[in-house]
Each structure stands twice: as C-alpha cells, then as structure tokens.
C-alpha cells in the first residue's frame, strides 16, 4: 500500500530512494478481551527514512499508540497479538525475533519517549541510575564512562549542573525537566529511531514549545529518525516532515506536511483540520466532526469513516476504498478520489 510509493518511485529524490530505517507493512494487532476481539490496528503500512520526522495523528483510540508498541515489541501478550504484517528495522524483521533478540534492539537501536514525564520515571531510583542502566545493559561500558555519557546527554537536553543533578530523584525536577530527562534516557544508546508517544501532551504550552525545539535540535545534531505520535496538529505543524493520518486502525491519508495541511483529500483529514482553532478564521465557529469512531470490536466492512462522512456514498459502506496516489508522496484512501465518483 503506502510503502509502494517509495519502492517504485522514479523521482530523483535522494531522501525517498534511500532504504527506509523502518518499514512497516500491513501491520495488524488484535487484543482478545472478555467482550470479544478488538482489532486495534488493521493493516497499517508506512516508512520512516533517516533523519526525518513522521507524525502519526489521529483521535484517541485510533491505534496510534498500539502501532508504536507493536514496533517496540511491547504489546502485552496475552491479550495482545500481532496477527499479520511485517516490521522491518534496517532490513531486519522484528516480528519474528525472539524476546531476547528484541530486547537487545529495544532501548539500543529503537528508543521510546512516553507521554507523561511525571510517571515515566521511577520515583525510587536516582536519575543517574535511570540514565545509565540502559546503556550498561546493552554495552559493556564501564560505570564511569556511562556516567560521563549521562552527563553529556543531560547537557544535550539542556539540564544545568548535570553532574550534581544525576544524584537527585525524579521528584526534585519539574515536569518539563523530567521530560528532558526522559528524552536524555531515550538518547543514551544513540538510537537510530525514536518513537515519541505524545511527548508534549502532559506539559503546559510554554514547556511544549521548548521540548519541540529540543526535538528539532537533537535531530539536527544526531540525525535520528523520529516517529511522533500525537493528536495535536499544532505539534505536527511545528516539527513533522511527513504526516500519516490514522483512523479506526488504518492510515487513511499520508503525505508531506505541506500536502496534508494545504491539500487534504480525505474528508476525515479535512474535518480534523477544520476542528482546530485558527487565527485567520476569527469569528467563525469551529466545526467539530460529528459522531464517534466505529466500534473496533466489529469494524465496518467499508470505509470506517462512512457514518461520520458528509460525502458518504453507497459504496463507502460496503467496500474499503483502494489507495489513490495523488503525488509521489501523497496517498489517500477514499472513494471520492475514484475516477468513477461524481465530482
């Protein structure tokens, strides 16, 4: 589906021709519960290239976080299970690795930043210990060198007096500082891919801006690829290169930031953009998307957005639309884009 763009691309775009750092294809994740089986992720495909930031946006429960957990091999099993699909990290298939092999990649090559810095750090361990334990697990680095590295990382994320602060506990730091530490921990092993799951949601807006700038700075310095998972389009507009819009366990539109913001093609993407306050539309009421997402215990056969879509047609209910290539980088799954649809 979406990856085809980049594999078959004929455009002489150096970024796009590279081997992607991460290649996800037809990923499906289900959770077995007493109430039935939830199909949380239903065939997601995307690529992440070196040094870029891919934002995955969508509302709560659309499968963003499950997708990231699946890449990390952190789906709790049972009840969760990757039922289909491939996750290739630098050409290596992750879904077939053993638990121990996966653990060696986790934290070393792929790191994760969690949403809430207030709970992501262990309250009973010193910051220094929490920074160094990962690198000491993955490499045979000495304790002094690990501490040096930790000081370096603390400097990189902008924490003053790093040597002294390593001896402190999480409760002695503010929320923004804690998120910086969480980012420093994620960077300790110099990963190639950073998955940031709503990294700014729990922070207040001024701190949010600082953290986003920090992401940009780190990416420039280290060339790390970032998957940014968020529901905040403001964050996306600031740091994403490309955007994948997720809805009901599927990616329904993917494109560059410019394409998604200025030429959205899927009605859901349009709805999402319309529901964000804008300075240039002062005085006009916000347009929320009416209705609620479909029940993923029994997802609809056709397009999952049909029930909420202002342009829904008969075919939408019954058959899931094929992916339409709009440009080399822009895809959308919508029947309106089919040539047979009435314009």
């Amino acid at each position: 589906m979406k990856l085809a763009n980049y594999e078959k691309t004929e455009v002489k775009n150096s970024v796009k021709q590279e081997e992607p750092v991460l290649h996800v294809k037809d990923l499906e994740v289900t959770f077995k519960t007493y109430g039935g089986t939830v199909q949380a992720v239903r065939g997601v495909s995307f690529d992440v290239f070196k040094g870029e930031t891919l934002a995955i946006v969508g509302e709560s429960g659309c499968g963003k976080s499950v997708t990231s957990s699946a890449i990390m091999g952190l789906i709790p099993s049972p009840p969760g299970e990757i039922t289909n699909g491939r996750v290739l990290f630098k050409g290596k298939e992750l879904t077939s690795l053993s638990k121990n092999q996966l653990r060696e990649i986790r934290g070393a090559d792929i790191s994760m930043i969690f949403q809430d810095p207030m709970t992501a750090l262990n309250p009973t361990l010193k910051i220094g210990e929490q920074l160094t334990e990962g690198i000491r697990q993955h490499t045979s680095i000495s304790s002094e060198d690990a501490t040096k590295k930790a000081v370096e990382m603390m400097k990189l994320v902008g924490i003053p007096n790093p040597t002294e602060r390593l001896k402190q506990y999480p409760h002695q730091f503010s929320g923004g500082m804690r998120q910086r530490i969480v980012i420093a921990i994620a960077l300790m092993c110099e990963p190639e891919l950073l998955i940031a799951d709503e990294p700014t949601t729990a922070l207040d807006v001024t701190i949010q801006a600082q953290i986003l700038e920090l992401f940009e700075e780190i990416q420039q310095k280290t060339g790390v690829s970032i998957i940014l998972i968020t529901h905040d389009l403001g964050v996306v507009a600031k740091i994403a290169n490309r955007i994948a819009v997720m809805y009901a366990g599927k990616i329904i539109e993917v494109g560059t930031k410019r394409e998604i913001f200025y030429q959205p093609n899927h009605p859901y993407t349009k709805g999402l953009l319309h529901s964000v306050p804008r300075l240039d539309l002062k005085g006009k009421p916000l347009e929320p998307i009416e209705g609620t997402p479909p029940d993923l215990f029994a997802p609809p056969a056709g397009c999952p957005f049909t029930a909420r879509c202002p342009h829904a047609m008969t075919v939408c209910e019954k058959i899931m639309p094929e992916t339409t290539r709009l440009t080399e980088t822009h895809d959308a799954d919508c029947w309106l884009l089919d040539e047979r649809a009435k314009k």
Partner: protein
Amino acid sequence: MARYIVKRFFIMIITVLVIATLTFFLMHSIPGSPFNQERGTSEAVQANLEAFYGLDEPLYVQYGMYLKSIVTFDFGPSIKNPNQTVNDLLSRGFPISFELGIITILVALISGVTLGIIAALRHNGVIDYLAMTFAVLGISVPNFVLATLVIQQFAVNWSILPAATWSSSAHMVLPTLALATGPMAIIARLTRSSMLEVLTQDYIKMARAKGLTPMKIILKHALKNAMMPVVTILGTLVAAILTGTFVIEKIFAIPGMGKYFVESINGRDYPVIMGTTVFYSSILVFMLFLVDVAYSLLDPRIKLNAKGGE
C-alpha cells in the same frame, strides 16, 4: 533526620506512658485482687499480703510507685511466683520468644514476598490461583489448628521432627511453620496486589522500553515500589511475634514470654501485667518508628523532618 529522631523519641516515651497509664487504671477497675481466688486466706493474711505489695495504698500512690518502677525498669517480684521478679521472667522468656520471632519473621517475609511476586507475574494463571488459595487458607486457618496438624503429621505419623520444646534447630521447624504461615499469607497477598499495581505503572513500561531484563525490572524497578504496604504491616507483625505468641508457645511447650501475658491477667498478677505491657508497647512503638525510617529509605519522596513531613 536527627531532629526528627529526637522528636520522635519523646513522642515514643509519651506513647508508652499513655499506654501504661491506661493499662494501670483498667487493671485496677477490674474487681477482685490477686489474693482472693479460692484460697480461703484469712483477712489478716490478705491484708498483710496487700501491704507487702503496696496494694493497700490509695490508687494515686500505687500509680506513683508504678511510674517509678517503669522509669527504673524494676517491676519487683511476681505475685504468683514470689521467688522470681518480673525482670527475671522477661529476661528468661524474651530471648526465646525473640529467637522464635526472628526466624518466623524471616521465613514469613522471604517466602511471602517471593510467593507474592510469582503470583503477580503469573497473574490469573494457575500458579497465581494456587498461591492465592494457599494464602487464603493460611490466613483463615488459626495457627493453633495448624500447630496440632503439623505435630500430628511430622512428629507423630512420620516421626521426623520433635513435637515440642525448644532446644535444637530441628525443634524450631514445626513452631516456625505453624507461626509463620499466617503472616506469610498476609505478606504474599499484599505483595501480589501491590506488585500488580506497580507493574502497570509507566516507569515499568519505560524500563521494558530500555531493554532491561525481566529480572532487573522486577527486582530493581518494581519490588522497591511495591514494598510499602508490606513494610507498614511488618512493624506490628514483628512486635506481635517477637513478644511471644501465647498459643504456639503453649502447644509446643516453649518457655517464651507469651504465657506470662495470659497467666498474669488471669491471676491478676499486677507487676507482671504492667511489666509485660510496658515491655510490649515499647517494642511496638519502636517497631513503628523503624517502619517510618524504612519508608524514607524505600521512597526518597518521604522526608523525615521535625515538622512532620511536607
């Protein structure tokens, strides 16, 4: 920290004094005296006895004498066994109760925590259900029932362990088993539920995302956070077990401190009641103090200071 300990020390003294005072007046509000039980002693003899022990004095004088005995820690002779002092009884009985208590606590703590962790890791699995069934049984079966069962099985039917007394390590097995099962079950249940809560925390997910081994995640990240409730009950548990458990000591004929508790109350043996009460409450208060210190060691967010924390 130092100021906290000093302040806490004074509070501990006051607490023990309050307990001792309440016990004194409760004890004297119960009708009867040590000398009027089916002995048929003449009134003259009784009056002499009371004069000897100072029981003919007004209550406030007795209370004063009693306070003095607490401060000097000299409770005088026992009324029922006049040839030995209360201090003799305590110094003879307590080391044995203490030995039994320490072994019991260690067994209960180590096995209880281990069982709790295993149950939490195998949440809703067969091992979890087995462990928790065992824990419910351990809590519901009184230790004296368990004591007679283990004596019947190990000492009588199989003849592999001695049935009673306290003289070698083999003698310690059955009383420890009978005494430790209950606390172990309580600790296992607490550890399990607290572990289950901790394992859902973000910092555990983060530890997994760092690629740490499951062993490190459990022992380093989860256990320390999960131990708070266990430490809370451990204080009272230790005090209760250390100062002797009357029933178990009676069943296994262990010459510990526990029996003096009960016998002294039945016999209105005022000096022994007061001595054991003060001794017991001092240990209890001290254990609760240790628990508070342990909190601050486990969780750096808990600061001990003279203002009573932030």
